[in-house]
């Protein structure tokens, strides 16, 4: 789960990391009021959870009240990568001395939490990682002890020569690490971390992503979710313990297991079709879950055919069959359904579905091909 810059900064502030004076606004009038409070010049920043806001014109410096209004109007009417801007952050204009990058993620390979620091801030860190990986300094936290003070100092001393700033930076790194661990974060990032002309260390931007598996223990994090910015169907799916991602094709896929779901999409494509979605109904299923899955799938009007690919292990094919049957009646589904159900209780499933007017397939190849065939 992701949150907006302004939300990430609220968390940062709570942990004692310095951020610019700021106010989140929804309307042009609010922006003007905020600019008076914060002072002009100020920066107006679109709050959307996609990269490249700056390039898209979503971040503007306003040097006069007139410019405040102009920028507020333009940004609040903007779409960035297809996402309409509904909130902006009015931010104190900081007199920047230097910019750096500071972030924390889990390194899958080393199986440890890693603090990444780079003397170049405000640029895309992924680009640097690809082109000049040596420019990124990595410090690993001890998995049981945390980010030890000497490790945090190492980060600070890498970024800054002035010991005072270096130790302030060490303290910021320790606070970031605490946020990371306390909140089950999957990414926490300050880019750029700036030293202003007065020598203060300020988080000019903030990024905070969360590990979905950790959300159950953080209702306060869950409460930050911006439901407007997420796809309604994907969100609904998540709430029903399903995993759904909408794509642009016309063959709706219902599969158990993420790997098999991806392989199913790949197979549809392989045989010349276009998958309409990724939909994983998960491990242990019930007829209700199948019903819910179909409800979500059918919101997509592009879907012309439904392809069930179920390999029963912990999932029982009869549960899925009962779900299909119920859904077909309750939701009055007219779409042709190709069903490939194999594994646990597959015979029972066949018995249940015998009279339902489905197209059966013995293998996933056959299922994909039949689904594509039906579109012709």
């Amino acid at each position, binding site marked *: 789960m992701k949150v907006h810059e302004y939300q990430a900064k609220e968390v940062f502030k709570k942990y004692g990391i310095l951020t610019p004076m700021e106010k989140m606004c929804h309307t042009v009038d609010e922006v003007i009021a905020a600019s008076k409070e914060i002072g002009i010049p100020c920066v107006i920043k679109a709050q959307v959870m996609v990269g490249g806001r700056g390039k898209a014109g979503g971040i503007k410096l306003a040097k006069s009240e007139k410019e405040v209004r102009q920028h507020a109007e333009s940004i609040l009417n903007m779409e960035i990568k297809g996402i309409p801007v509904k909130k902006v952050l009015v931010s104190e204009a900081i007199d920047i001395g230097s910019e750096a990058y500071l972030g924390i993620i*889990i390194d*899958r*390979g080393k*199986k*440890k*939490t890693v603090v990444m620091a780079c003397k170049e801030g405000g640029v895309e860190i*992924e680009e640097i990682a*690809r082109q000049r990986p040596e420019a990124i300094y990595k410090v690993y936290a*001890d*998995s*049981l002890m945390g980010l030890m003070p000497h490790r945090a100092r190492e980060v600070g001393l890498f970024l800054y020569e002035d010991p005072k700033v270096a130790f302030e930076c060490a303290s910021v790194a320790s606070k970031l690490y605490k946020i*990371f*661990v306390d909140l*089950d974060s*999957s990414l926490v990032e300050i880019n750029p971390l700036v030293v202003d002309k007065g020598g203060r260390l300020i988080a000019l931007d903030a990024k905070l992503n969360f*590990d*979905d*598996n*950790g959300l*159950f*223990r953080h209702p306060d994090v869950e409460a930050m979710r911006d439901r407007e910015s997420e796809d309604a169907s994907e969100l609904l799916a998540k709430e029903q313990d399903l*995993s759904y*991602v909408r*794509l642009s094709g016309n063959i709706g896929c219902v*599969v*158990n*297991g*993420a*790997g*098999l*779901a*991806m*392989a199913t*999409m*790949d*197979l*549809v*494509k*392989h045989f010349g079709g276009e*998958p309409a979605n*990724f939909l*994983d109904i998960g*491990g*242990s299923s019930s007829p209700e879950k199948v019903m819910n899955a179909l409800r979500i799938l059918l919101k997509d009007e592009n879907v012309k055919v439904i392809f069930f690919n179920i*390999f*029963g*292990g*912990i*999932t029982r094919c009869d549960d899925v069959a009962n779900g299909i049957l119920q859904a077909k009646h309750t939701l009055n589904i007219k779409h042709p359904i190709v069903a490939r159900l*194999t*594994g*646990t209780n597959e015979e029972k499933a066949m018995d249940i579905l015998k009279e339902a007017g489905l197209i059966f397939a013995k*293998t*996933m*190849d056959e299922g994909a091909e039949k689904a594509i065939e039906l579109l012709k």
Partner: protein
Amino acid sequence: MSIFVGKETKLLVQGITGRDGSFHTMQMLKYGTNVVAGVTPGRGGQKVEGVPVFNGVAEAVGKTGANTSVIFVPAKFAVDAVYEAADAGIELVVCISEGIPAIDMVKVVAYLRDKDCRLIGPNSPGVVSPGEAKVGILPGHIFKKGNVGVVSRSGTLTYEIVDQITKSGLGQSTCLGIGGDPIIGTKFIDCLELFAEDGATEAVVVVGEIGGRDEQDTAEYVKKNFKKPVFGFIAGKTAPADKRMGHAGAIISGTAGTAAEKIKAFEENGIVVGETPTEVARLLKKHLG
């Protein structure tokens, strides 16, 4: 012959009295697995499918000599279950539970470093050595004793591929799912090291997916160190960039971790890649006859 589990496995089921735990205990017993004990704190003294239940792993190990455990407890308690098993001297822990926060796994992995305990998973479907033992939730009927080792990051996709292999007439030495989470106890390379030493394994199938760079690392390892033929499959060719596909293992960060990259790494390092699960089985069959 086999790796991880076999005739010598004495299995303990953690969370044996739960819905999944009891169901799969029955399934594993049916398969012929030597299930010696179960643990559910507070249910000590009961029996599940004839298997004695204990309050703690240490007690269960002491009374039954269990050497392997499989974990069916909810994510919230699964990490503690791993610690308990490791503390009690269990040698192999197969964690089926899914949804464990990554930061918890970072600690688990660090804690296990000092213990004589291997973890498979979490979010693993389990391990099967056909004809010897089945530990986990993989459906037993799809397996056949044979000489192909299968290791996968997925669950059901593994079944699909195993099923195809079996239907092609071949069989498996050992098959396991290592779990698709970002932090897991056992990786592809760990498995390949064991398959290399396993006399019964003549070829290995590696089933990867988008996200991370484990497949790339594995490819390099295979080229340098692995003498047996390796076949590969990568799921997620049609996954859009920067979209989460069901579990944490399936995130694409920038271009790193795409299916195309992984397939390229496989092919450049001598791993034969099948376009579809069916093709994997066909290529294998062609090679092993």
